[in-house]
């Protein structure tokens, strides 16, 4: 059975581990073997400490043998995006700036995974400092879409999505600021969920845009996604934006067929490719056939979302990335000079183009004379967008759109047009601006490339999103799908 292990879901693996049909050690050995075969093609992982993984696996097996198994994630490998701190492991954020950094502390989610008995499995490639939607901005390596190795996997959690789609790991953590979990999930045909802002602690997540960032679970099916979400969501006094216990998020949703689904007016017209439109429309029709009420909703400020996001996110990022100056950790320029020169050279050598672009933009929108016109206006626009979404979600349970207007593009195709890339975040960005939970669920193909649909819910309605996803998944064949590699 060893060669099929990588195709199994985390839930199924958990069942087999519990039943004694499998050991974590065997499982990890199988995945490591596949890593050696496949990762060089896909480039999902930037780092995998095999000895450490096997040691964790043995410890897990010993716990289980002693009757001290910690739950459904015991012995299950979870791969971690390289912007989430794991003590003793690299924390590079796929940047030259942090290439040498080994984290001296654990993120909250890392502690939660350890407490759940999960195996912390490697470091995943990403767009540098989570800035990007193709993982092409990684300073370390390229990641390729397992469904078409000439295409990007999406970003910034491209390594996470690719690892899942290539059968390299059953569960992965990503982070999402403007769509960085959901968009690569859509491009790679897997499930990705961004929780309600504040549900999962950001302590240990390298900050890009503090008021927008969230860690979230990624998996090949809804059941696995939920398993991981439950392990991660908990109060953490070290993050003042993380609110208390999360039971509300898991209150049973009731019958998914009774969900009211809202389709934002005009969304299918926004540069959406024909095959994406077809797949998403089919998803809408599926829900309708199940008895869900489908209605059109108005979101008049939809056009403000992308500019608002890029002003707020880059402003916060320009400040969050100020700490990277070569003084206390990370890359320090070898060139001599004054402290100002040292910091400037270190930053210039350490950051890639997209990061610099965003820092410059963020610095501009906060700068004297411009902060009112840009940053303060963006906050007001954000208020308005949030209010509109909450109003819409008072009349329906979820809003449904495509996740991305078009499927994964070819590597290098959009490298010279950052604005174009920004505009593709149109469906995912509002959930970050409004702090709402959102999920991408695979629903078809455009040619051979995966397509996903996107659901947004009211605050703490994760259960409804998962229920809707489960209803769809059960009737279609997209769960557990992996590219043939």
């Amino acid at each position, binding site marked *: 059975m060893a060669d099929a292990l990588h195709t199994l879901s985390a839930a199924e693996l958990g069942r087999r581990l519990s039943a004694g049909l499998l050991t974590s050690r065997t499982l990890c050995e199988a995945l490591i073997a596949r890593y050696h075969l496949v990762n060089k093609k896909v480039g999902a992982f930037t780092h995998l400490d095999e000895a450490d993984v096997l040691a964790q696996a043995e410890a897990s097996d010993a716990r289980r043998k002693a009757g001290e198994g910690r739950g459904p994630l015991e012995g299950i490998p979870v791969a971690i995006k390289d912007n989430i701190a794991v003590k003793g492991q690299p924390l590079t954020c796929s940047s030259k700036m942090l290439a040498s950094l080994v984290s001296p502390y654990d993120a909250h989610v890392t502690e939660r995974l350890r407490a759940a008995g999960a195996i912390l499995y490697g470091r995943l490639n990403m767009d540098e400092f989570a800035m990007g939607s193709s993982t092409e901005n990684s300073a370390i390596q390229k990641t390729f879409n397992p469904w078409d190795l000439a295409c990007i996997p999406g970003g910034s959690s491209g390594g996470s999505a690719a690892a899942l789609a290539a059968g390299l790991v059953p569960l992965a953590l990503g982070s999402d600021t403007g769509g960085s979990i959901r968009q690569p999930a859509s491009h790679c045909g897997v499930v990705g969920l961004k929780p309600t802002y504040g549900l999962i602690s950001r302590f240990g997540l390298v900050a890009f845009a503090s008021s927008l960032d969230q860690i979230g679970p990624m998996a090949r099916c809804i059941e696995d996604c939920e398993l991981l979400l439950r392990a991660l969501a908990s109060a953490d006094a070290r993050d003042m934006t993380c609110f208390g216990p999360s039971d509300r998020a898991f209150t049973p949703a009731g019958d998914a067929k009774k969900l009211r689904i809202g389709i934002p007016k005009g969304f299918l017209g926004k540069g959406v490719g024909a095959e994406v439109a077809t797949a998403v429309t089919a998803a809408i029709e599926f829900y309708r056939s199940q008895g869900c009420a489908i209605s059109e909703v108005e979101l008049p400020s939809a056009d403000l979302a992308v500019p608002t996001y890029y002003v707020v996110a880059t402003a916060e990022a320009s400040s969050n990335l100020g700490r990277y100056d070569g003084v206390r950790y990370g890359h320090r320029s070898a060139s001599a000079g004054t402290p100002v020169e040292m910091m400037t050279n270190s*930053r210039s050598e350490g950051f890639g183009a997209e990061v610099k672009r965003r*820092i410059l933009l963020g*610095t*501009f929108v906060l700068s004297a004379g411009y902060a*009112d016109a840009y940053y303060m206006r963006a906050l007001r626009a954000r208020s*308005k967008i949030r209010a509109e979404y909450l109003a819409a979600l008072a009349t329906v349970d979820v809003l449904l759109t495509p996740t991305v207007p078009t499927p994964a593009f070819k590597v290098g195709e959009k490298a010279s047009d950052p604005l174009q890339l920004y505009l593709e975040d149109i469906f995912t960005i509002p959930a970050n601006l409004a702090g709402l939970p959102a999920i991408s669920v695979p629903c078809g193909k455009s040619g051979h490339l995966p397509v996903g649909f996107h659901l947004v819910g009211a605050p703490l309605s994760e259960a409804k999103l998962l229920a809707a996803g489960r209803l769809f998944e059960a009737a279609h064949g997209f769960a557990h799908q992996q590219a043939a590699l």
Partner: protein
Amino acid sequence: MDRPPLIAMAEGFDIDHLAKLARLNLTAEEKALYSSQLNQILGHFQTLAKADLPETIDLARVVSESALRSDEPGPVLGAEAVTRIAPASRDGQISVPRVVDDEA
């Protein structure tokens, strides 16, 4: 009305000044490329300039004192760990090039 108007952002956007503020060195090519790309992006942000927006910002989460931390000292990294991570150190302190101005 907001000032300066977004239409005029081509004048307001001084890449040399911004690079200095952000502690970034840019080559002449980078300056040209980023200027043009960022001005294009800012041009797209016209919708933000023209939009009818509420006066108040209703986003701030408000917490009570229960969210504050008690005054219990917690664990420290230790000077050894701090200097181990640091690119350069001496006698337990982090070393940097000579700082000249004494404003603290």
